[in-house]
């Protein structure tokens, strides 16, 4: 059982609490995290403000003032939340099925979009065709969304594609498909970023007007397939978003 995995609970500031199942990217742990996230979204704790899931942890932000106003028997709101959080770990996984989606995403791996693919080929001593083949032959899991709205952290890539992110963030176009370590991801908007870019998708990863604002969500399975630039342009009818300003993030 997953519950036997060791975990640690700690405060994230004075109005957040995190339960962490270790510094690992593990499909089983992540599956449990997403179930727990689902359960706690559907059955929020009292004073829960919002809940965020990551690879192997869940963070709950809570209404500190309201909690402290109404709960007087605990020395801190944190202690109270901790107790509630631990008791909700007993939820029934079986009755809490998470929707499983398989999503196919077209990617154009041609040179005009794949700004780092040749460097990667040289460094990893494989051909561009092999990179495309390796990238499209794996089913990826969306472990979490973060960094930017709609940015999905996916893994795990073939070990032949394992490559460190750039030292300095560069400006990256919306739709760019990148790799970093054993992860792959898609930039939802033009942004500074450090992932090695091997292609671009015409699919919008984020649409503020839609009911489902982000194209992907944690727990999805993603398959990439290769398209030509003609196909890319015929699918990509939307004008590019204007360039962004601001500090570079670490993704």
């Amino acid at each position, binding site marked *: 059982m997953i519950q036997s995995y060791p975990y*640690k609970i*700690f*405060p*994230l*500031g*004075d*109005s*957040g609490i*995190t339960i*962490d199942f270790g*510094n*690992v*990217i593990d499909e089983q742990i992540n599956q449990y995290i997403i179930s727990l*996230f689902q359960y706690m979204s559907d059955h929020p704790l009292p004073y829960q*403000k*919002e*809940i*965020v*899931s*990551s*690879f*192997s*942890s869940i*963070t709950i*932000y809570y209404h*500190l*003032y309201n909690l*402290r*106003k109404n709960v007087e028997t605990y*020395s*801190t*709101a*944190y202690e109270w939340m901790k107790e509630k959080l631990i008791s909700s770990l007993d939820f029934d996984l079986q009755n809490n099925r998470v929707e499983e989606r398989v999503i196919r995403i077209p990617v154009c791996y041609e040179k005009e979009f794949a700004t780092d693919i040749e460097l990667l080929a040289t460094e990893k001593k494989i051909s561009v065709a092999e990179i495309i083949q390796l990238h499209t032959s794996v089913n990826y899991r969306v472990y*979490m*969304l*973060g*960094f*930017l*709205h*709609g*940015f999905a*952290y996916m893994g795990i890539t073939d070990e032949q594609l394992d490559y460190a992110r750039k030292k300095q963030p560069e400006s990256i176009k919306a739709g760019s498909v990148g790799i970093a370590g054993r992860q792959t991801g898609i930039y*939802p*908007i033009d*942004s500074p970023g450090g992932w090695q870019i091997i292609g671009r998708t015409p699919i919008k990863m*984020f649409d*503020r007007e839609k009911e489902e*604002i*982000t194209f992907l*969500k*944690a727990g999805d399975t993603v398959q990439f397939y290769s398209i030509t630039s003609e196909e890319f342009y015929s699918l990509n009818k939307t004008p590019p*978003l*204007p360039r*962004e*300003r*601001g*500090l570079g*993030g*670490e*993704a």
Partner: protein
Amino acid sequence: MSLKILKAGILDTIQDEGRFGYQHLGINPGGAMDLLAMQTANLLVANEMNKPVIEFFYPAAEIFFEKNALIAITGANFSPTLNGHRIKNGVPLMVKKKSVLAFSKKKNGQCCYLTVQGGFNLLPWLNSNSTNLKAMAGGYEGRKLMKGDILEFDADFKNERLKKNDFYKLPWRSVCFNNESAEDEIFVIPGNEWDYLTAQSKKNFTNKKFLTDVSSDRMGYRLKGENLVSANKEELISSAVNFGTIQLLPNGELIVLMADSQTTGGYPRVAHIISAHLSKLSQKQPGSTIKFTIVNQQTAENLFVKQQLHLQQLKNGCNFRLQQFFK
């Protein structure tokens, strides 16, 4: 017909308390940098605390009032003037139509807030009016305010005091919240990766002073000072970070994540600014000195509760005075 931007400032956006419930999609809460000042502005004119306000950085916008308004300006002191006459922060002010609000000099602080009684008529995005510049959504068309923009508000009133004067200062004001610390002292609680720091770095964190860097913005305040060393070289996978999280960057520098921070990050979280001190930190101009003091969870919570009680008092006081005044 309401309020018009005559001249754009460097970064004037609509903000409220923030957008919550979407961080799992990577959508950050945003919201005012100095929540306390933003909430105070609203309370001064008897608004709900969460009404959208304009947040200004310096240089700030110049604004034309097309109709009478009851306004309040709080936060940083940018030397506000109305038709050239100096006006004050932290007081409710009746403004006569066809007046011009301008800000002539940055005296102290970083972020300044303007609210009007009744609030602006704006369409929320995901239950909030905060401007998300990256997503280009929320606030005013998802962007900073520009010349010619018009913000509508419903409230309108006639008052005989405005017959003779361009503006009239109502006879009460907000007092500063006493956060029981020195001007440059910022309280923090240790983060989960606090123990990554070497013993010497832990000492330096609390004993040395840090300077806020010029590259600071709504996403983060970078700090200059003694570089800190992590004894743990293990790479961290991304997990939640929030407004007030202090991350240790690979080069040994610290960054405090601010209102527009990312939802998740992978740098060690050495500490978190306590909620009650975020207002104070947000008003630090580049080059300001800050000194960290570690407090425990209970102190952090108690100070926040105190701050909220202070706001409640202000709310009751302002509502009462306003009712009396317009009776």
